[in-house]
């Protein structure tokens, strides 16, 4: 509770938002606020300016392209992703969104906020890496796209740097891929201890969350359980040890959950 002093602006366009962000290196975009406001309550971070994105309709779109490419505005909430007909093109999105926190958080929390916060236990960073999504980032200099693999830089840090704004998350067509998400959480649907996202289609993309500052992408050569476990083992994960889980336990869970996620994803694959 009880934030430090802060200034507030509610731009009416992305361009205006980018100007506000670029004007002050200590300005931060305010999306759903379900992470940022809490960090500010703890006074761990104290941005000087909050640029509220909630008025930007252009960031709230969900579009399904003819070929099955899904474009999600950064301000799409988890609840919207869960109920969106377009999102059913990639059902794993709604399935995972439904596991995030609780109803109230899902009503406010946004896809863009989830990945830009990149809390190591967040659900969407490993999922979007597994799906091979790309992120569109706008800055004063213009627009660029960054593959999910390169987007996550650290806890609370992504390729969308100061003065920039994530606008769109583009999820490629499923093309028959099977997707799955497996996790062990603190309590039912709680904070992740380890989570694993898998997308299987020819080559498998397996991504482990909660074990490092950024999601860890592993490409097991096959969907065979032993091969998957071996690939995770060889990845040499160095997860944190904390009150919820030892590093050993997290390493073990990464293998178990990877095997489960890949098995489920393979089962969901449409050949």
């Amino acid at each position, binding site marked *: 509770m009880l934030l430090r002093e802060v200034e507030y602006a509610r731009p009416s366009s992305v361009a205006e938002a980018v100007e506000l962000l670029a004007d002050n290196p*200590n300005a*931060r975009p305010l999306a759903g606020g379900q*992470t*940022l406001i809490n*960090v*500010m309550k*703890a*006074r*761990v*971070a*104290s*941005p000087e300016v909050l640029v509220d994105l909630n008025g930007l309709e252009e960031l709230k779109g969900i579009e399904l392209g003819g070929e099955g490419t899904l474009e999600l505005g950064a301000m799409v909430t988890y609840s919207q992703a869960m109920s969106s007909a377009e999102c059913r093109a990639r059902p794993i999105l709604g399935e995972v969104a439904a596991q995030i926190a609780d109803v109230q958080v899902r009503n406010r929390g946004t896809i863009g906020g989830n990945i830009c*916060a*990149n*809390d*190591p*236990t967040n659900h969407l960073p490993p999922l979007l890496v597994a799906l091979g999504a790309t992120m569109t980032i706008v800055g004063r200099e213009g627009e660029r796209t960054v593959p999910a693999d390169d987007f996550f830089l*650290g*806890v*609370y*840090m*992504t390729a969308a740097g100061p003065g920039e704004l994530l606008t769109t998350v583009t999820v490629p067509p499923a093309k028959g891929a099977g997707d799955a998400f497996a996790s062990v959480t603190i309590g039912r649907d709680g*904070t*992740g201890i380890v989570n694993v996202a898998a997308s299987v289609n020819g080559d498998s993309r397996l991504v482990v969350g*909660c074990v*490092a*500052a950024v999601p860890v992408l592993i490409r097991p050569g096959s969907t065979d359980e032993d091969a998957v476990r071996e690939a995770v083992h060889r990845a040499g994960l160095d997860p*944190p*040890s*904390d*009150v*919820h889980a030892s590093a050993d336990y997290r390493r073990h869970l990464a293998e178990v959950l990877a095997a489960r996620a890949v098995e489920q994803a393979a089962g969901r694959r449409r050949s």
Partner: protein
Amino acid sequence: MKLEGTRSFEAPRQAVWEVLNDPARMAKTMPGVESFDVQDDRHWKANVKIPLGLGVLPLSIGFEKIEERPIEYARLHANGSGVGAIMSMATGFHLSEADGGGTDMRWEAEVKVAGPVGSMGQRVLQPIVNQQVQNVLAALDEQVQEAYSAG
């Protein structure tokens, strides 16, 4: 929390050692350093703003060189305090000659963090500290390269 690792530099041991003992160069390895004062050859002070993505954590940090055995071992203590935040770090650097002329560095660090950052939860604290240490090491690498190529 305890962290440790190894790192190889493509520079001779003497060059690495000099960087480790050059406060001005060490200052450049600090994340978000704003000012740096050398008090004597064992004590330095720095004001830093550690970037945490969502904002910055301002700390003023005092460094003390505790022990040194030239060109093979150095031990440093750092004590930082900010608004309600306390950080302390004890680090050791062991240098040895690598095959082919480079230098291998084995390092360990014991980091203690308390205050509001701690209350942000277990899930973020250790990854943040880990990452900051990695950043310092990467910067150290740069400084070594820079000093070596300049020298």
